[in-house]
């Protein structure tokens, strides 16, 4: 529950700031600042302590709003960008790179969506000869705080009018109510991330159960929305093949395959600095017992393990979800 909201002075009168504040019926402490960095970027913050009660920070995103996605992370397009209207997440997944990426655990929300829209439209126009893909959900969960951020009702109409842009909304949330109010938009993919249920229960703290996420997917599919399946990260475990087989079987028996736009998967991987910070702050967590090795500055599973896991994943996916494009997010 959010009890403290920091607001940059430059957005204190922004229409979205006012709307967000109006949603907090219970008293919240509002504190004004000159720049979000005064709270978010200062040194020696303790991510784990802050995660106990994160504040909301409302700010203006300056500079570039769109960034190229890493090579090999596409879902079939050549022009791929990610954007982050928000940094940090309400969930607390042990493997989440956000805990090593930012100094703070507070939710930093950039309220100047209109500047994101302008850059997205500009990019679509620049790439008018082919589709441009835009990914949301890299630095936050796209839907988890939608009740506060109004992400869906703000961004969907942009893509409804700009069909040459494909939007992927990546999430582990079941906050799909606002999406269901819209007619399906052909160029929007609601992509759900999964790990098998028993793994999720252990290391994806506060995340809705696999079954509840599948139920949400089903509701979206019934309405005609395109869905994505994201198995990223793949987590090595005992009975790996059986556990993932069960997950794919459950999904495929609940979701009509014609609704699935694409499947992607990837191994756990972290840049060195991020990996060191995460391991330092999570000494008691389960993921620290996994075997990571450093290859060219990226910590991931040993190559032979990766190959073994990839083979199993692809084989099992094809068993239940043949004819759906599968993308391996290889480092």
């Amino acid at each position, binding site marked *: 529950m959010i009890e403290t909201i920091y607001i940059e002075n430059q957005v204190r009168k922004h229409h979205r700031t006012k709307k967000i504040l109006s949603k907090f019926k219970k008293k919240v402490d509002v504190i004004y*600042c000159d720049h979000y960095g*005064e*709270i978010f970027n200062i040194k020696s*913050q*303790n991510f784990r*302590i*802050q995660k*106990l009660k994160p504040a909301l920070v409302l700010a203006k995103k300056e500079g570039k709003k769109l960034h190229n996605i890493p090579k090999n992370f596409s879902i079939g397009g050549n022009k791929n960008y990610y954007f982050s209207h928000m940094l940090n997440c309400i969930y607390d997944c042990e493997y989440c790179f956000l805990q090593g990426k930012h100094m703070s655990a507070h939710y930093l929300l950039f309220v100047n969506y209109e500047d994101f829209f302008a850059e997205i439209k500009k990019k679509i126009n620049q790439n008018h000869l082919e589709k441009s893909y835009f990914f949301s959900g890299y630095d936050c969960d796209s839907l988890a705080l939608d009740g506060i951020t109004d992400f869906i009702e703000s961004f969907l109409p942009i893509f409804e009018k700009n069909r040459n842009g494909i939007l992927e909304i990546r999430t582990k949330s079941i906050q799909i109510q606002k999406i269901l109010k819209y007619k399906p938009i052909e160029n929007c993919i609601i992509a759900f991330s999964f790990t098998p249920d028993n793994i999720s229960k252990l290391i994806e703290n506060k995340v809705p159960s696999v079954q509840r996420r599948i139920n949400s997917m089903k509701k979206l599919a019934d309405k005609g929305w395109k869905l994505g399946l994201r198995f990223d990260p793949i987590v090595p475990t005992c009975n790996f093949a059986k556990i993932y087989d069960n997950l794919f079987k459950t999904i495929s028996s609940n979701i009509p395959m014609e609704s699935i736009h694409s499947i992607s998967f990837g191994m756990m991987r972290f840049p060195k600095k991020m990996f060191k910070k995460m391991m330092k702050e999570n000494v008691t967590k389960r993921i620290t017992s996994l075997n990571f090795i450093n290859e060219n500055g990226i910590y991931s599973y040993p190559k032979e393990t990766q190959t073994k896991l990839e083979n199993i994943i692809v084989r099992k996916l094809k068993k239940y979800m043949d004819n759906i494009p599968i993308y391996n997010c290889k480092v």
Partner: protein
Amino acid sequence: MNKVNGINIVVAMKREATPLINYWNLKENSKNFYSNKKKKINLIISGIGKKKAEKATIYIGQKTNNYFFLNIGIAGHKNFKLGEIILISKVTDNKNKYSWYPSLLWKTKIKKSPLMTVIFPKIRYTTNYLYDMEAAGFFKGARNFVGPEKVQCIKIVSDNKDSSIFKISSKKIENWVYSKTTIINKLVKEFLKI
């Protein structure tokens, strides 16, 4: 999480410190430096002004490892009631406008407010901030040792637009702090949970 080992409290005046020294049964180790080793509470009387507060905070910080830092004292506000206890949400040094934002993680219903540290006592209250003379120095000193989650500031209102600083007396200060010792103790216990 690296749990704190105890708490360092910085207070400007003896009159502010006396009720706390008595409440926690603190023993004088050296001049203006008190502690209760069992309760893991240290208290230092810094003297008035941000430079003295910073110096005292650094002194006490160098003597301890991974301690929580708390500044307790009096402050003025345009409208707040005399004797009211406030948890500080932002501290700004009026001279250079630098601000600190203590993390607000606590289960407490205590009112929160931003505070401005000034060099001279404030007679006119031009903003909605509290005004004091030490907090900025205290934060500058304490943040050398720990992060924003472990530095906090509690103020008790000593003057407002209806009752100027000229009406403050030593006895009143002692009474205001005395009347809030239970609440302060409760908050200290909350601070020490992290």
